[in-house]
């Protein structure tokens, strides 16, 4: 096994496992930057995974190769609808953010499995036929060494995710919308006195997180698990949150942190193919992402370094 092949396996599987995390952590970033903690990302990912698989199974015949991509959009819409629950509860009804998010995490798997049984009569769906396969970048994959590692047998949606994180960074830090969104998460009262609609901004943040979280779940289902059941999403939503914190609520940072966590997750799966790593008992590789999350949080982050008004409900007095 050559070094190039080892890197190729590592990079491509890292990207594959990181992609759902990238999308979801970007979503979390927008939500928390507007001041709404969204612990329910796990539940939104579940709904995204569920809806994309159902869409895929139903419409694979109609859309062929484009199915997984269209399913992403569908999952984004479903994620958006689900996130509205959280938005209404926290923004309009002053619910505690953590509890509302946990309600989503309870509701999503229950609802999803319920519907799987209603639609298909069993607890786990069939495998989808149209998944995100491996992708070879035309031309680029012919470059010696680099081409083989980065551009061959890799994940196209992964590169899309990286592109999206740059776009997200631009929106958050260079546009008027981004400035206002961030102001609402830092000092909603100040923003209010300047005529900014705090509620609207927070809704935007949560809805964006719903769309991206749904897409994240859909990517996971259509690229990694290729079906859906109650145990498809197992903590990825929370790991995405950790990536967001590790990335200091910055889209590029969240993306890089997601790559890191993606690498850690992928090692437990592809580790057997790689010398040295294959000799580590699999349980260590399996718990590695979770242990790493704890270590990262404990060592690098004391109390909140996030947006100042994050998690605090804003109440307008009239």
């Amino acid at each position, binding site marked *: 096994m050559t070094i190039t092949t080892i890197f190729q396996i590592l990079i491509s599987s890292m990207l594959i496992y990181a992609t759902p995390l990238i999308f979801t952590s970007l979503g979390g970033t927008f939500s928390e930057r507007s001041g709404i903690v969204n612990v329910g990302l796990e539940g939104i990912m579940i709904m995204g995974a569920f809806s994309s698989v159902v869409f895929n199974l139903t419409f694979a015949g109609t859309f062929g190769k484009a199915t997984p991509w269209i399913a992403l959009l569908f999952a984004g819409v479903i994620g958006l609808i689900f996130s509205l629950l959280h938005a209404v509860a926290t923004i309009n009804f002053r619910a505690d953010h953590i*509890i509302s998010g946990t309600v989503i995490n309870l509701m999503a798997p229950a609802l999803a499995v319920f519907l799987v049984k209603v639609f298909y009569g069993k607890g786990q769906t069939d495998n989808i036929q149209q998944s995100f396969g491996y992708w070879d970048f035309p031309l680029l994959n012919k470059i010696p060494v680099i081409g083989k590692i980065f551009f061959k047998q890799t994940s196209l949606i992964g590169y899309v995710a990286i592109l999206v994180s740059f776009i997200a960074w631009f929106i958050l830090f260079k546009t008027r919308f981004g400035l206002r969104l961030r102001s609402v998460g830092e000092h909603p009262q100040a923003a209010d006195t300047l005529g900014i609609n705090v509620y609207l901004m927070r809704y935007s943040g949560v809805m964006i997180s719903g769309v991206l979280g749904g897409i994240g779940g859909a990517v996971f289902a259509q690229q990694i698990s290729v079906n859906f059941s109650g145990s498809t999403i197992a903590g990825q939503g929370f790991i995405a949150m950790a990536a967001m914190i590790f990335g200091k609520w910055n889209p590029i940072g969240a993306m890089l942190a997601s790559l890191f966590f993606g690498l850690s997750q992928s090692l437990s799966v592809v580790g057997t193919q790689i010398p040295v790593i294959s000799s580590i008992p699999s349980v260590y590789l*399996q718990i590695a992402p979770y242990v790493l999350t704890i270590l990262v949080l404990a060592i690098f982050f004391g109390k909140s370094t996030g947006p100042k008004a994050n998690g605090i409900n804003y109440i307008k007095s009239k």
Partner: protein
Amino acid sequence: MKNLSIRKGMVPIIAVVAGFLLGAIIMLIFGYNPIWGYEDLLSQAFGNSKSIGEIFRSMGPLILTGLSFAVAMRAGMINIGMSGQALAGWISSVWFALSFPDMPRVFMIPLVIIIGAAWGAIMAAIPGILKAFWGTSEVIVTIMMNYIILLISTYLVHYGFNQKLMASKDSTIQVGANATFRNSFLTSITNNSRLNIGIFIAIIAIIIVAIIFKRTTLGFEIRAVGLNPNASESSGISSKRTIIISMLMAGGLAGLGGVVEGLGTFQNFFVQYSSLSIGFDGMAVALLGENSPIGILLAAFLFSILKVGAPGMNVTGIPAEIVNVVIASIIFFVGIKFVIEKILPQLPKKVAKKEGEN
């Protein structure tokens, strides 16, 4: 003043009703008859003495995990790690019970309780210490611990347990008569349900926790730190120490819940594929019960009815998972209680107005 407490007391009831309504709506959307569905649920739940026994059997672990969440909440901590803590309690107590098949029951029972609770406490101490000393968010750490404990427990079953203790690759043999929580009297009056002494342990736990919080300096300190850590520090209460103690208590209670599941409900240990549901259901119990001992008791009763009755809905073809949707909805409505409290006083006024118009 009285109005306010009546309003607040109505919230759980309204939340429950709303949750059931939402479940009914979802059933209707997908073509099921909610009235038959709920009817089947109730007849399954109360139909015979066996299922009534199962209800009380189910209440044991739920009360314990509910208390776990409530105790942590009093200290200002959000303990989402109860699944992992319960699992740690379960596997450690079963392992101990299986490893000492000849120990007299009078020693085994207390020891197994202590060991299970201790392991739960240790698992909770980690997020507790991280929060106390480094301010690390216990929300994510406890969630991560759930997965870590889950994976390690599977590994232990496959590679760590002595083969003599295994009944199959994924499950152990049953614990002996010296360790089981089942009781022949209880089993017989409930027509062979899995009812066990766990419910009594849970009730004792409720009483102890209630006394601690109402009457002791420890309870006072936990409440103080949960309400205002700064003022507590100024008053000489160590918030670090209090946070860790309350997480130890929470973990111990959840671990105890796992012990009851292990030695009462199942009487063995088998590989788990996802987080124990009693963990999250415990959170739901505590929230609906508003973290109060009586509330937790009643909420556990309600949720047990739902859980035990759910399979009955299969008669009309309704998947049992709808019950989890109902539970989640109930918690949603508890979460937005501010709105419910605001709307409530309007209703009697509107009724009076209508009557005035007539």
